[in-house]
């Protein structure tokens, strides 16, 4: 029964990436570690906000993320996307393919769609994330993820998803309110200005820590 725990930093960065480009689709990766039998998603690396269906720069970025992860003893544990249409919380064909690529690197990877429209109004304790596990050769939505019980939809081996703590939600809200998204840089932006650190976004990490 795979257990995924999403940290404040990972959640906040994914949300801020989405907040920076509210009219576009954005996608990125989650990094983390396996600790005490659980998969802890400790960080997010934002990839792109433009031409998100196209593959070449995704390939380059993924290869570099893998190199970065290896030298920092991290695993690539997840793929996240926010669709251009806020009503859609499914994985598009290209998203499903990208998520599957992550799976081929790490069979424990999960996929997430950011549910932006429910960010403010979501139930207490619920992050704006829809979780997917690869079951029976397809990505299946894990209904009930983050609700404190095992999710439905993963067949015989239900996955559980939880947040590291409730502070994660408050932190994300505070940061969105103060427009902290100006401080997150993805691979697309890095390609236009290589001095932007898309792999770490250290300054933002500091802000998240102190929020």
């Amino acid at each position, binding site marked *: 029964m795979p257990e995924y725990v999403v940290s404040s930093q990972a959640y906040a960065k994914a949300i801020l990436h989405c907040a920076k480009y509210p*009219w576009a689709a954005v996608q990125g990766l989650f990094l983390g570690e396996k600790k005490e039998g659980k998969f802890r998603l400790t960080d997010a690396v934002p990839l792109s906000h433009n*031409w998100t*269906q*196209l*593959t*070449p*720069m995704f*390939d*380059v970025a993924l*290869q*570099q*993320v893998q*190199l*970065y992860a290896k*030298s920092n003893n991290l695993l690539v544990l997840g793929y996240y996307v926010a669709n*251009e*249409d806020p*009503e*859609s919380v499914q994985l*598009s*064909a*290209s998203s499903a393919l990208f998520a599957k690529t992550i799976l081929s690197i790490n069979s424990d990877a999960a996929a997430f769609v950011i549910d932006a429209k429910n960010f403010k109004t979501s139930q207490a304790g619920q992050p704006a994330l829809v979780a997917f596990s690869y079951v029976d050769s397809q990505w299946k939505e894990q209904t009930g993820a983050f609700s404190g019980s095992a999710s439905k939809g993963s067949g015989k081996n239900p996955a559980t998803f939880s947040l590291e703590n409730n502070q994660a939600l408050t932190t994300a809200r505070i940061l969105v309110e103060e*427009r902290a998204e100006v401080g997150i840089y993805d691979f697309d932006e*890095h*390609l*236009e200005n*290589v*001095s932007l*650190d*898309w*792999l*770490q976004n250290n300054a933002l990490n500091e802000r998240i820590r102190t929020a």
Partner: protein
Amino acid sequence: MSSSLALLAEIRQSSERRPFEVLKLAEPLLNKGSITQAGDDVWVVYEQIFLSAIDEGQIELAKAILVILQKRFSGSQRVKRLYGLINEAAGHPDESEMLYNEIIDKDETNVLACKRVIAMLKAQGKYAQAIKELVSYLDIYANDYEGWLELVHLYMGQHMYAQAAFCIEEVILLQPANHYYHLCYAEINYTMGRLDVALKEYLRVVELSTDNVRGFYGVKLTADRIRELAKSKPKKDQLYFSLDNVPQQATLERLSQLATERLVGAYSGASTACKAANEEWLK
């Protein structure tokens, strides 16, 4: 002219979407009344603030500005379109549709209203219809490269890459010296497996611009991939391009080396983590 007004003019000029900044700049202008320093431009500034207000969901502010514009330009089709926009933003699509159709009935060449109708279809998730309407629009206005770009975007969203490629070709015909469109074309072709075209277009990108990191990544990625594929001697139907159509191994190697050199040069100013990842990747 105040610096805020100058900045607002810059943003208008570049047509970048920066609604939060616009509103921040506009706030004192509106509150202190110094917006009048814009002289005759005050109306386009109001329009700009209106557009940013609805983008930020500040409907009340947008309404207030609309009243000012309506007072000055009553009966204007341009202002009518803004009424359409505020109705869209407030979630009244039927109202908007009616207004846009009225504008078009009065003047069928009003392209902004036509485009709004298409945009609404897109917003409602009616992508097939949006595409159909946009194709009809482009039959008439074939020089509207922004229209073609929107169609590229719509087709990519439906993963219809061949159609998207056709559309970006039209844009390139209209704007052949703009590296950005060659970049888009290169990446669509790469996604389709047409590495021969992708390589050529990435080379065109670096030719048309200076120190284009994305372009050089593309050159190296494609050149290396083609070399790999050529070495593994695949069957003809396994490839989406012809190996007859690509440079020789030696040339591919040199292209890859050139790209590597340029990337190393570009990355001298990067952070440690990114530099390390790039160096590793280049190996």
